[in-house]
């Protein structure tokens, strides 16, 4: 909301410099986005160069067709010679003159100048040059009664300051010059001046003869009032009005429209002026739109309405979308002579819904959507009638049509004095509280331990005691509050075990050279197809967003993989060779119930990573290995080890993975994730080169599994003994199977068995391979002897031969 200081001064004396005022407003809850000078710089040396002048003579410039040489009386001994380029300049005019030595808005300095050989000592101003309108056709012609040599600033705002304030949605009263001025009066402790009574000529003709009004939708329109003004002459507004309308950021249109805008800006009550001649049947009906009913709004757009939208209609058609925008057909034109002036109050909920359904907002609707005081209507109508009859002539028909459910009266609240310090943590005296509330327009009565506060109807936001507490501290000053700490309960606080585990996983991966990505949770549905997911798979049925920003961000991810692949591809396009990324984030599963209930989809914390390019950075001394299946599996093992979880690995047929180089990760027999090289067709779809390994793990499941506490085990008193065993087995026998049989047959003293070497080649024969196992034996009661170990080892061999067809490698 743009507020010129000169306009605010209609209601309150402002002595503070504009920057300081802005800061006071900010610290009391009215944010000021900008403070900027309007017009010429505001100092006396500049001001005295702006004067009223009378054009005494005008002649054509001898050497330029479009220039005039004028003799202008500016109250000095002799008239000055001023060269002017405006087509409309003429002898006898009263004009605005700026003399050499002045500075215009934007910093342009005025000096003596020679124009095509004629010396010009000053300049005749257009309205645009003073910022009163965006573009002027010629110079400003001023009222004749203004005297030559008078300072222009006595009549017009030559210099001003503009405050651009951001009003919070609870304070629609501040979306007006008057409301802001009231706020300024309260925070600067200045008196606030209400307007004088508005007077205007009233005809004998009762308004009921001009118009009849029905409100069949009172739920959406709590108050509707109208007056009729007959015999107006539509024309341009006077300069002062143009200046204010322009300064407020609006465009001057004509005197009627400008007055309705001026009143809205002054008081915060939107008005609408109809050309009475266009109101069919002389009848206004405030009703819900009929389904499919259309209207062409002032912005030139044809709009189709629905039956939950409120319209102002005449006997035939809707002419305004209530509170939002009028139709082109009912607009006031240059030929309009009779005006129906509407001031109404609409339900904010309905305005909000209609605005959002039509994607249409206006200065009027941004006020109605926040809820307005219905008691603004009478003064707004009075002010508009006074201005209109003054500027456009005409007479106001007698009376007002005013339809309302019931009057809104000021209400009472109680403020317990003790409650204020209980909430704020500082003592504010009863007298201070009462003073603050009175300055804000409340009536306050002392009732002992409490204040009885009568709230004016323009403060619809003050409904409860706590609202008054806020008003008190807002004006009292938050800077006066001490900085204290709440009494924390003893022993509270900390991360949960699960939270610590997630951090550990992230640290493990970052420690292994992976960089963390944070990817949007919404993805492109095309990606699901690119992953070759069959349509019936749960991953291919994501939560869809009804109103996405774009189709590329229209469904919630069911896997981390696609986002990571897209991120890898983007980095690849930036010529990154080694792309090792991980992400920890949620996936969303509509087919599973959420732990939070309420029909929400299940959210799972997952860990995902992708590895592309060499495992390590380039080095002068050694060649790095590529990121292959075993690189990925090693990382998965690292994560699981970090979480204290043991897992098994089995083949998997996930459509997005290489069929031969992928595994599901099994924890307690249930799938807790997968790791594998990504299918070349998927990589093609994401513009990635072949040879990328990825994994995803269900972090929720894994964090729930790992043991919370490691209990000490003595591994030192009776040390472990290691024994190596090279077995030749069928090439297709999986290592996992061998290890399982070894574990079963090894007896309780066999603590660990792992594969440390694999050999395939002529030494073991075709179709066979050798697995070198390292067996770790340990007893917690004695040191194992050589003979005992040898016996255990030799007992193992026949079992392995029988169950696996394994031979000892010679």
């Amino acid at each position, binding site marked *: 909301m743009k507020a010129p200081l000169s306009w605010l001064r209609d209601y309150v004396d402002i002595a503070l410099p504009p920057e300081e005022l802005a800061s006071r407003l900010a610290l009391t809850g009215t944010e000021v986005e900008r403070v900027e000078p309007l017009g010429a710089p505001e100092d006396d040396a500049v001001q005295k160069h702006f004067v009223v002048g009378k054009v005494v003579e005008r002649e054509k410039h001898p050497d330029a067709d479009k220039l005039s040489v004028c003799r202008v009386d500016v109250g000095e001994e002799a008239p000055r010679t001023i060269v002017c380029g405006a087509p409309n300049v003429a002898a006898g005019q009263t004009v605005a003159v700026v003399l050499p030595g002045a500075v215009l808005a934007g910093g342009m300095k005025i000096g003596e100048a020679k124009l095509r050989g004629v010396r010009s000592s000053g300049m005749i101003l257009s309205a645009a040059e003073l910022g009163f309108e965006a573009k002027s056709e010629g110079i400003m012609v001023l009222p004749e009664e203004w005297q030559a040599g008078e300072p222009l600033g006595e009549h017009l705002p030559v210099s001003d300051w503009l405050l651009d304030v951001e009003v919070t949605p609870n304070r629609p009263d501040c979306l007006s010059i008057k409301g802001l001025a009231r706020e300024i009066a309260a925070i600067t402790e200045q008196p606030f001046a209400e307007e004088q009574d508005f007077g205007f000529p009233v005809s004998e003709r009762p308004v009921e003869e001009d118009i009849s009004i029905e409100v069949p939708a009172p739920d959406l329109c709590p108050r509707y009032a109208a007056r009729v003004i007959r015999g107006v002459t539509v024309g341009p507004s006077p300069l002062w009005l143009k200046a204010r309308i322009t300064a407020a950021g609006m465009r001057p249109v004509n005197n009627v429209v400008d007055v309705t805008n001026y009143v809205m800006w002054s008081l915060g009550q939107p008005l609408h002026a109809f050309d009475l001649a266009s109101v069919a049947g002389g009848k206004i009906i405030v009703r819900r739109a009929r389904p499919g009913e259309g209207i062409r709004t002032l912005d030139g757009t044809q709009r189709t309405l629905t039956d939950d939208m409120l319209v102002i209609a005449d006997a035939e058609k809707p002419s305004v979308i209530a509170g939002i925008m009028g139709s082109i057909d009912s607009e006031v034109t240059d030929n309009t002579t009779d005006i129906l002036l509407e001031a109404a109050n609409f339900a904010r909920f309905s305005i909000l819904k209609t605005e959002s359904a039509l994607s249409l907002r206006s200065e009027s609707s941004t006020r109605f959507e926040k809820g307005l005081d219905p008691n603004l209507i009478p003064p707004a109508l009075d002010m508009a009638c006074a201005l209109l009859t003054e500027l456009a002539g005409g007479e106001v028909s007698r009376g007002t049509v005013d339809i309302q459910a019931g009057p809104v009266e000021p209400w009472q609240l109680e403020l317990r004095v003790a409650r204020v310090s209980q909430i704020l943590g500082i003592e504010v005296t009863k007298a201070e509280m009462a003073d603050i509330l009175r300055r804000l327009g409340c009536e306050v009565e002392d009732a002992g331990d409490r204040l009885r506060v009568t709230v004016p109807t323009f403060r619809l936001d003050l409904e409860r005691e706590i609202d008054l507490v806020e008003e008190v501290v807002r004006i009292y000053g938050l800077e006066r509050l001490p900085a204290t700490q709440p009494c924390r309960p003893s022993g*509270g606080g900390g991360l949960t075990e699960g939270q610590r585990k997630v*951090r550990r996983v992230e640290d493990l991966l970052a420690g292994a050279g992976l960089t*963390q990505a944070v990817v949007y949770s919404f993805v492109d549905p095309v990606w699901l197809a690119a992953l070759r997911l069959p349509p019936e798979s749960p991953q291919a049925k994501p*939560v869809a967003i009804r109103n996405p920003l774009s189709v590329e961000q229209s469904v919630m991810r069911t896997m981390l993989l696609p986002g990571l692949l897209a991120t890898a591809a983007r980095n690849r396009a930036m010529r*990154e060779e080694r*792309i090792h990324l991980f992400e920890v984030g*949620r996936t969303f599963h509509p087919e599973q119930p959420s732990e*939070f209930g309420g029909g929400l989809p299940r959210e799972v914390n997952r860990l995902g990573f992708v590895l592309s390019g060499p495992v390590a*950075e380039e080095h002068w001394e050694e060649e790095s290995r590529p990121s292959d299946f075993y690189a990925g599996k090693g990382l998965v093992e690292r994560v699981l080890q970090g979480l204290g979880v043991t897992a098994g690995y089995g083949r998997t047929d996930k459509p997005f993975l290489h069929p031969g180089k992928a595994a599901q990760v099994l924890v307690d027999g249930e799938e807790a994730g997968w790791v594998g090289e990504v299918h070349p067709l998927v990589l093609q779809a994401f513009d990635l080169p072949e040879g990328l390994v990825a994994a995803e793990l269900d972090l929720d499941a894994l964090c729930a599994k790992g043991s919370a506490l490691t209990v000490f085990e003595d591994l030192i008193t009776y040390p472990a003994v290691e024994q190596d065993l090279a077995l030749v087995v069928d090439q297709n026998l999986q290592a996992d199977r061998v290890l399982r049989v070894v574990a079963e047959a090894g007896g309780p003293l066999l603590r660990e068995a792992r594969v440390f070497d694999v050999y395939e080649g002529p030494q073991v024969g075709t179709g066979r391979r050798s697995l070198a196992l390292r067996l770790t034996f340990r007893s917690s009661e004695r040191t194992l002897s050589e003979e005992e170990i040898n016996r255990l080892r030799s007992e193992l061999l026949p079992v392995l031969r029988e169950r696996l067809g394994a031979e000892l490698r010679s």
Partner: protein
Amino acid sequence: MSEWCSKEATIPVDNHILQGLTRPDLKEIYERGLRDLESARTLAELEDLRVRYLGRKAELTNLLRSIPELPASERPEVGRFGNLVKRELEQALESARKDLEQAELVKGLEKDRVDVTLPGRPWPLGHLHLIEQTRREIEDIYVGMGYDVVQGPEIETDYHNFEALNHPEDHPARSLHDTFFVDETILLRTHTSPVQVRVMEQQSPPLYLIAPGKTYRRDSDATHTPMFHQVEGLVVDRGVTLADLKGTLDTFAKKMFGEERQIRLRPHYFPFTEPSVEVDVSCMACNGQGCRLCKRSGWLEILGAGMVDPNVFGFVGIDPEEYSGFAFGMGVERIAMLKYGVNDLRLFYENDLRFLRQF
């Protein structure tokens, strides 16, 4: 002559050991042997000396071997001192060998040199995302102040995201949030505040918690991303005041941005707190003097906060006459941008490794 003298001086002729020795040949073997061993410069020389003095054909070996043939009167002296000399020479040999071995090792090491300025072999080091790092910093500050860290769903009900936070359906504050909807009543949470409601539904005061997480708004331009991160804070206890909120946030600002930082509170409006405030921290770039970062104001907005609105307590069944509380919410990206000087919000979500690897 001088060489002789120096050797003479360095050989420890232990008169005590050889006291009573009368045979000059043994004494001579002893003294010459020690001198020669001392002067050996290589292990090969030393081996020659071993053969010469202690080998099977050495003078001393021969002498010892000949003991049975010696006159009985000489046998004790030769036996005793001969073995003594042998042991002494063996020890000297061993010690000389050690010295020479060490010297040769040292000499070998001198030649075994690498270019220490070439790069070491890579042990890959990755990076946590700056959002994660910042979130952890925030969490750790509040955990240190005795807060718990809790989480809630990112896809939320309209009730938890709006209604129970005092945004009734006809409330204009709803229009501040450009909301992504899943259906009529389910949406992507627009802030982390619904976690407040969920916790208060489940637990009784005292509550001291923060709730970090992802949030979503339908807005995308240079200063907005449709997904972003917030940390919500909630304290509910007996006698909690607005001054307590100020002190808590002052502590946070100092720990996050440095001890010299100040905060200021400005009144504001949020539907679920009353009184509501916005909180500024004194600009870290200019120390509050006014610069481009703070738009010459000396202050940077960092978060919104306020006292829990009694209506919110009403929704979750907490008596506002018995308990009071405060809540605050901050944008993780905003905090990270201010702290680390990141000048474009979108960098956080482009995941360009050149950006991520900086932190």
